[in-house]
């Protein structure tokens, strides 16, 4: 079968050139057709989305957008809806994640975009979300109005299913005309979602498009990069730097680079009863999305002095990963990914010869845990369920071990008593950690979270303020002025 990706209002399927890409996993194959627009089509699409947004989206109350998103998400949450069924069928083949992980992941993620969560999301960033609809009184006096960009370009990356919805919905909530560039590794969900929206509220559907071009293809991307007034991009630092260099200086650039997550386990969480349960939660964070998420843990700092020693905790973790591998088999790895895992594992094994590291699991196991007793700084593992556990005398040592990598920090999963949690959080915040989650929830941020510590909506808008003086001065020109 061939599945067409994208959402191209105003363009017929025949008018567009399609690039066919085959994907295979779990014994099935699918061919995806990705749209390749020519320069004229791209420029026209940008103009059209911008104009439609100006004429329609920007005139709508934000509540109507919330309702439409809610309705679209409700359909994707409905396991009997044809599109949901399609997603559950195709996403495992395209991304390689096992069916159960995709199903559970989709549901867990989508439920954070229901109406109450969307409203909370708005309230999180705007003291008065009505300022997206019109001028509202400001606390300091005067009036404030928030405007989203006219044309917001999303450049998505990675294979985590449906991750694109996050920024797409952010853009819609601030009424931005939106064009999303699909990630080659997950080029489906955003287009489906846009199609659903267009069915529910055709006027909204006219204000967004979902496109694709081959990453780095300068000719293909130029029309989009020139037309957008805000660009939200995901990718590695190299990709982001190249992209930034191509943007007009007046374009607002909101990059989300790659990140490394880590966990911290305090000694009070390590008694005979709690430790095995905690190991299970940590293993879940490691296995979900094969550590491909920016929030995924790659290292775990475990405090000495609990009833369960770090070495023993590593043993529990290894076993939980082994058990999870039965329920959620690891994706088939590409040669490069396998080399990364093998390279990392090999290096740990050599350190093990000097007694500096203890390696759990056999080379053929679809997971690896290494435990080291000497404190060491944060570093990435081989990904795909490879974890390093570092013993520390005291949690207080952790901020210094992760601090040098501020640019890569985002999520820390912490298991500690309240007082110590707060004390540690204070210091983690100072070195650049922007999200502290419980173990077991590292890969599932709560609705309205501040991605990379930023205001997801507020960062997109421009405020117009009517100063109190202007308001007062206007009084002087009123027909009813004395």
């Amino acid at each position, binding site marked *: 079968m061939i599945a067409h990706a994208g959402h191209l209002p105003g363009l017929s399927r025949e008018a567009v050139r399609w690039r066919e890409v085959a994907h295979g996993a779990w014994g099935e194959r699918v061919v995806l057709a990705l749209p390749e627009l020519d320069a004229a089509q791209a420029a026209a699409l940008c103009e059209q989305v911008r104009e439609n947004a100006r004429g329609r989206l920007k005139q709508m109350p934000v509540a109507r957008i919330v309702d439409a998103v809610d309705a679209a998400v409700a359909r994707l949450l409905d396991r009997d809806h044809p599109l949901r069924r399609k997603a559950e069928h195709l996403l495992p083949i395209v991304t390689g994640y096992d069916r159960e992980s995709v199903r559970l992941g989709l549901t867990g993620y989508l439920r954070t975009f229901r109406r109450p969560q969307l409203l909370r999301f708005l309230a999180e960033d705007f003291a008065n979300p009505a300022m997206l609809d019109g001028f509202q009184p400001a606390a300091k006096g005067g009036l404030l109005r928030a405007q989203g960009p006219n044309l917001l370009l999303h450049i998505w*990356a*990675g*294979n*985590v299913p449906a*991750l694109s919805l996050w920024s797409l919905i952010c853009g819609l909530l601030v009424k931005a005309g939106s064009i999303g560039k699909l990630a080659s*590794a997950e080029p489906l969900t955003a287009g489906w979602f846009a199609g659903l929206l267009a069915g529910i509220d055709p006027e909204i559907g006219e204000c967004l498009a979902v496109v694709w071009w081959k990453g780095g293809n300068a000719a293909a991307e130029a029309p989009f990069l020139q037309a957008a007034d805000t660009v939200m991009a*995901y*990718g*590695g*630092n*190299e990709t982001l730097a190249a992209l930034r260099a191509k943007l007009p200086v007046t374009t607002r650039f909101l990059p*989300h*680079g*790659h*990140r*490394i*997550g880590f966990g911290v386990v305090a000694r009070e969480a390590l008694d005979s009863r709690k430790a095995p349960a905690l190991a299970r939660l940590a293993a879940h964070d490691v296995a979900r*999305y*094969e*550590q*491909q*998420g*920016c929030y*995924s843990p*790659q290292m775990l700092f475990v405090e000495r002095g609990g009833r369960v020693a770090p070495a023993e905790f590593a043993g529990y973790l290894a076993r939980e990963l082994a058990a999870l591998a039965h329920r959620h088999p690891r994706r088939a*790895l*590409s*040669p*490069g*990914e*396998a*080399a*990364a*895992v*093998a*390279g*990392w*594992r*090999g*290096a740990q*094994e*050599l350190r*093990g*010869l*000097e007694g500096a590291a203890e*390696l759990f699991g056999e*080379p*053929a196991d679809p997971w690896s845990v290494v435990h080291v007793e000497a404190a060491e700084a944060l*570093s*990435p*593992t*081989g*990904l795909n369920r490879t974890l390093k556990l570092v013993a520390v005398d005291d949690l207080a040592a952790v901020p210094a071990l992760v601090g*040098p*990598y501020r*640019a*890569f920090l985002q999520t820390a999963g912490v298991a500690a008593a309240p007082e110590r949690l707060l004390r540690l959080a204070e210091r983690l915040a100072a070195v650049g950690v922007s999200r502290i989650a419980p173990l077991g929830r590292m890969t599932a941020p709560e609705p309205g979270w501040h991605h990379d510590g930023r205001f997801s909506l507020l960062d997109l808008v421009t405020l117009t303020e009517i100063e109190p003086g202007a308001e007062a001065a206007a009084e002087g020109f009123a027909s009813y002025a004395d």
Partner: protein
Amino acid sequence: MTQAEIIEALLAFIARPDASEAEFEAMALQVFAYQFRNNEPYRRFALQRGRTPLAVRRWRDIPAVPITAFKGLTLSCCPPEAASHVFMTSGTTQGVRGRSYHPTLAVWQRSMLDNFRARFMRGRARIRMGILFPDDRELPNSSLAHYLSLARRACGTPDSQGFIGADGLDLDGLLAALAQAEAGGEPYALLGASYSFVPVLDALAAQGRRFALPEGSLILDTGGFKGQSRELAPDAFYDALSAAFGVPRASCINMYGMTELSSQFYDDGNAVCPSVKSGPHWVRSRVVDPLTGADLRDGERGVLVHHDLAHFNCVSAILTEDAGEIVPGGFLLLGRVDGEASKGCSVAVAEFLAAARS
């Protein structure tokens, strides 16, 4: 077995090209037992893998050490200070070079010469050589310098010359020698690091010069470009060599060797790339899945493992970082195996290191 005994057994084995598969296996298991007993880090490695002389019955099950281990560990059966020669890699990891310790070069030299004569000299006793690499006095820790110096001493005519010394490339000397060879009509052999040929090719191109070396002339290159020169794709490289020196691509032989081995691999010319490489009867190569270490089927691409019995004092079984594939008559060498960036938005090792360096 004592060191003297293992050396004697190996020299005898190298002298027997008709040795059977079973005899190779028996010799390999003896060498493994010797290394397990005398090489402490390798012993720990084998124990960690659960592959000990007690457990291993086939040469294929002898645990292969990742080649990076030669950088961090002292892999030697004799005390390192008892080594007469220490060969070091040119590439480093954080300033550390890989090292191979040799208590004697007797086995190394026997291995090199028997194989070199069979695969490069092809029945000739001597040939006039031009060497594009410093000699072993200049680079005492370079296995390639020893290799080329030994080739020249044992198989070169007295008028053979080296053209790279302390002052760099002696281009004039080289051109003079080539012109003389061209005129003299006797076959000539040009040997050196692959990257050493590039500036020569560039200089000849700049001068618009070409040579037509006499029939029977040979070229031997090795090691690739390693960032020391421009990178050339294999076809472009051999086309250029062939055009510049008048040596057909079938007579351009690539040697694949490494500091962490005591034997080399050769192809039978590079008329077609990638060429099929193979080693002598005391060496076996496997292609494995990098994750599990399990043998892949012939024709499947994986990572190369070499078992070189001649490397008796260090470790005979090494897991390389070279991609390869087993084909009839040997293996194909398909470049390096590199780790891949994350498919998602987690940071992977390469990007992390790049950021840490900058």
